[in-house]
């Protein structure tokens, strides 16, 4: 019965893509482009090779939408577009201006600064393992998938601040891109280049931004190298996972895994993790998730991001308010501010204080905070940031 359900799902996806194709055809039929298509790309072979995403064996399968299958040519095109400043108003800014490999695909700024020098309100997000972000993209989850997300920065006034019409014109007239679009998507004429195809290619590239699986953490947890962590890192690991009782050691619970857990430390769910002290839910400077759900109890909630490579992506939080991981630990050690929708785990970090009613928690000692930071550093994955397949192809 279950197998049957899976099949149905696949049929659904296939049918959706068939419908999508029909729609694309329909659009082409009424394309107002004055340039008469001449089939100028038809002599270039269209033989896309399917691309197998390299992922660690202990990572879950990646959910690639049937409407955008991975191909070698698509990934190559996407990589170029991602690094190409041609996508911005004055050709000075590319996606990679705010998502650099060295910062685990962030810009290491508190808030990102757009092409016009205007600061945004939010901190750039790491794109490591973004293929697994299946619960909405951005800090508030307002974009449903990578294909949709990639359309947004180009026209965003505090990011690349141009129009897709301009960018698509530049792509059509380019000496190299039309061939690449042909090879990736089988278009027969440069007039068929669209922003949607550009976004699909960038999404394909982003789906290969996957951990190497060789961080100290991965080797310790998944590859049987059980002596790899030193005492401090191990203490941090135990506190992160609330595992002291199990291990028979005397350490408090830091509650982290409840929100940053799973196999890949990407929570993807939305919480108020106690950053702001507000007297009412209406007082959050940035309402976060509320933008999407319009539900008052979601005000001030943000998506729990991946903690992989977190030591490389300072500063921290949606507004970059904390410069170091130590500051982040000082924050969690305060046990929140008591806002009505604050997640209960935030108030339970440390040891329960005997006799307190309601139960209060001690927070963390300096040693414990440092041990947590040391543990977070075991999530560092230099092999990922140095992976030659994801670097700037123009350098």
């Amino acid at each position: 019965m279950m197998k049957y359900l899976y099949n149905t799902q696949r049929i659904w996806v296939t049918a959706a893509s068939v419908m999508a194709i029909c729609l694309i055809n329909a659009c082409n039929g009424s394309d107002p482009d004055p340039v008469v298509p001449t089939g100028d790309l038809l002599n270039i072979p269209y033989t896309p090779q399917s691309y197998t995403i390299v992922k660690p064996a202990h990572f879950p399968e990646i959910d690639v939408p049937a409407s955008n299958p991975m191909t070698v040519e698509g990934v190559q095109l996407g990589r170029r577009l991602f690094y190409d400043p041609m996508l911005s108003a004055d050709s000075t800014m590319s996606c990679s201006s705010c998502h650099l490999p060295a910062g685990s695909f962030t810009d290491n700024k508190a808030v990102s600064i757009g092409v016009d020098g205007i600061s945004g309100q939010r901190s750039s997000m790491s794109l490591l393992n973004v293929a697994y972000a299946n619960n909405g993209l951005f800090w508030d989850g307002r974009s449903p998938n990578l294909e949709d997300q990639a359309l947004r920065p180009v026209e965003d006034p505090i990011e690349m601040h141009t129009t897709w019409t301009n960018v698509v014109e530049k792509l059509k007239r380019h000496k190299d891109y039309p061939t690449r679009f042909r090879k990736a998507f089988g278009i027969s004429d440069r007039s068929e280049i669209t922003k949607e195809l550009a976004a699909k290619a960038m999404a394909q590239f982003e789906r290969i931004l996957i951990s190497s699986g060789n961080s100290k953490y991965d080797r310790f947890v998944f590859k049987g190298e059980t002596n790899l962590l030193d005492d401090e890192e191990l203490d941090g690991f135990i506190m992160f996972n609330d595992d002291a009782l199990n291990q028979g050691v005397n350490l408090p619970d830091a509650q982290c895994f409840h929100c940053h857990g799973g196999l890949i430390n990407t929570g993807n769910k939305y919480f108020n993790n106690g950053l702001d002290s507000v007297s009412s839910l209406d007082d959050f400077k940035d309402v976060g998730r509320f933008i999407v759900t319009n539900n008052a109890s979601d005000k001030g909630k943000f998506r729990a991001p991946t903690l992989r490579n977190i030591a490389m992506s300072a500063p921290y939080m949606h507004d970059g308010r904390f410069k170091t991981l130590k500051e982040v630990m000082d924050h969690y050690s305060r046990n929140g501010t008591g806002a009505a929708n604050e997640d209960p785990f935030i108030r339970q970090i440390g040891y329960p204080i005997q006799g307190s009613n309601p139960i209060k928690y001690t927070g963390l000692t300096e040693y414990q905070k440092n041990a947590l930071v040391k543990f977070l550093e075991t999530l560092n994955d230099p092999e990922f940031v140095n992976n030659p397949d994801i670097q700037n192809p123009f350098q």
Partner: protein
Amino acid sequence: MPLRILFAFLCGIVCFSACDDAAVVTPVVPTTDLKMTFKSTYDGSRMIKFKNYPYGSNNYPLQFNRFTLFLSDITLLKGTEETRLTESAYLDFTPDNASSDTSVLLNYTFQNVPEGTYTGIKMGYGVKPSDNGKNPADFPPSSPLYNDNEYWLGWKSYIFTKIEAQGDADINNQFDHFMIYHCGGNGVYKTFSFTQPIEVKSSAPALKVDFDLRKLFIMADGRYYNMVEDPATSNNKDSLRVANDIMSKFGNATSIAQ
């Protein structure tokens, strides 16, 4: 969602025609869709997040903010005969995309269920041990068990249920008593059967399954579970006992109707 259901329905039609062709050789029992609706309630009415519910002997206010549950092997019974509807389901009554605090109704359509009158239904509460020995990397994205958010690496277990609430146990307008019951581990997996005539035919109404959170916290002697003494399952050395208590009561807390 409705579009998807419509589509599932269309697929059903396609499959039926396919089955008709194949049916030349062996006569087949006619099959149809069975719809099931899962609901989360408190004392009979739909649970609403952050709403005050009376709790304990002195009726102090309690507010829920999360309720999720895995079910395994949802199976229709006809005497000793069993018809499995699905191996696993993940019920998130308080999903991130809800536009209000009202817990959501979760509708399922099981296709190709042999028509007839069944005598009851059996469900596993949690993730059955054979699946719980695996983890999200062992399941395809379409499976409920692909959900990495609900996997606890430390326990090597899915989190069978998450129930989170805050109470004002000393009635001073401060909701500072927390109930965080996250239960998991093969030891607390439970199976319950319910006797209830269930019609599977095309005109039959949906099968309704309600989980009454209040009944989850009423102990054998009629008193409420003491959430002040046992506020959590994770940082308490009795955590297994608490998790077991909660999981054991799901049978009582479940009601089935059609």
